[in-house]
């Protein structure tokens, strides 16, 4: 097995004095798509937030061999981990153009940024049409596209996606997931996907972890997980 891109070991997380992660460990290989499944409140979102140090954490998080636990969020971003939080990660009062510009804030290579923009528009041609529009005025699907586009502007090694399908029409969800697949393949970006829609997620991902009340209770290849009886009952509903 090749070296893991992201290694999470015995991760604990706290909101104030309440603990919401107890013992989360997993690994993400470079280049693949991994998904975190679990019921509401199982700690999926918290895990993503913990990786970016947006909650109080204990344990170990290693990215490309470097310990990043406890580093400020903005430093972690500079290691090219792009986090698309749930509920559309855009700046609603900024225009689409400004959203893309701010996304490349940490990058100093002007030419690279320019090229990135073109690639992003290639994935999401609709954003080019809306370039001067305020992000808040976009439709839900467009906002999600902008959020992913924004993450891409970072030229990330790893993308953390939190519920990209949330509140979107099924057709749009399918489109977005197709684009995610393309991004994963063409840009060599590893993706950690948190999804309510387990069926979709397991189709897309190659590897899956299942969280329950702040602990990893199961992991394995997507195909294996998909066929597990418990999973089928609890998350896939058939």
């Amino acid at each position, binding site marked *: 097995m090749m070296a893991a891109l992201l290694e999470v070991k015995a991760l604990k997380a706290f909101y104030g004095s309440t603990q919401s992660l107890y013992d989360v460990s997993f690994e993400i290989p470079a280049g693949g798509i991994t998904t975190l499944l679990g019921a509401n409140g199982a700690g999926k979102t918290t895990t993503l937030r913990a990786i*970016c140090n*947006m909650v109080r954490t204990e344990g170990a998080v290693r990215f490309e061999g470097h310990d990043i636990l406890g580093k*400020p*969020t*903005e430093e972690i*971003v*500079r290691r090219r981990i*792009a*986090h698309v*939080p749930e509920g559309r*990660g*855009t*700046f*609603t*009062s*900024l225009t689409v153009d*400004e959203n893309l*510009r*701010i*996304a490349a*804030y*940490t990058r100093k290579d002007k030419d690279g940024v320019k090229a990135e923009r073109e690639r992003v528009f290639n994935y999401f041609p609709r954003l080019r049409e809306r370039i001067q529009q305020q992000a808040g005025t976009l439709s839900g699907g467009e906002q999600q596209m902008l959020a992913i586009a*924004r993450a891409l502007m*970072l030229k990330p090694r790893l993308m953390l996606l939190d519920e990209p399908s949330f509140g979107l029409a099924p057709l749009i969800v399918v489109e977005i997931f197709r684009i995610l697949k393309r991004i994963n393949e063409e840009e060599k970006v590893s993706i950690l996907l948190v999804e309510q829609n387990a069926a979709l997620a397991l189709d897309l991902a190659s590897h899956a972890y299942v969280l329950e009340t702040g602990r990893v209770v199961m992991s394995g290849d997507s195909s294996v997980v998909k066929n597990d009886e418990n999973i089928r009952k609890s998350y896939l509903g058939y």
Partner: protein
Amino acid sequence: MEQFLEQLASGLANGAIYACVALALVMIYVSTDHLNFAQGEMAMFSTYISWQLMQWGLNFWVAFLGAVAISFVMGVLIERVILRPLHNAPVLSVVVVFIGLLAICNSMAGAIWSYLIKEYPSPFPKSSFGIAGVIGPHQLGVVLITLIVLSLLFAFFRFTPLGLAMRAAAQNPQMARLVGVRVDWMLALGWGLAAAIGAVAGIMVAHIVYLDPNMMGGILLYAFAAALVGGIGNPGGAVVGGFIVGVLENMVAYTGNQIEKLTGVYIIGNGEKLTVALIIVIFVLTLKPAGLFGRVVVKRV
């Protein structure tokens, strides 16, 4: 008619002052969501710094730039040292800290430079421009400088990555962190910019109202009104709001004066002009609750 023009011009000139201070208030508001009660006193302190630099022999513009730069650093320091530890404190507690800051700035300026009012030079040529009898060169200069500061700010926020980052940090700090913006520093930067703009405002005001530790007390009240009229998150609105408050106030006095002249009955005059102006402003606000230029933001519950 002559009085009307003079009142209008004087209202615009006063409005420019309010606008300048209001700009500084807006700067802090957009970057930190706080209304800084100490803004006026900080501006006054900066003005004393420029005065001191001139006393040491520097020429006006050098002292001006020096004071602006020093104020910028002071603003950053105040944020880092005094406000940083209070990040999670309730808004009202921060307001009390601002009041503390106000008291300190005011009394320190008095202790260092005394309370005797001082004349403060105008950088603008005595009479080569301006419309004689209606608006003086300095007043025109203040209007001009205010507009320049506003355009600079506009350009900064619109076109520079740093300006964009500040807006992003203000709008959604968590998200801003996720694109790599050092949000803490953006807050400090906002304070620095506000202090620098305040310094400009103070230096422009000082020639008109004279330099003394209490010179900003009254003006800050007007600047608050101006900032809120224009929609507190909007620099352009603040400037327009400043002019509106300045002109409106004089027009109220003017109208009262005309009524008294025509009918011989005193109804409103100088004593009531601020009150009446504010009532008009509030009436407008109840119709347009987000300020004249603000956008209504529906917050999620």
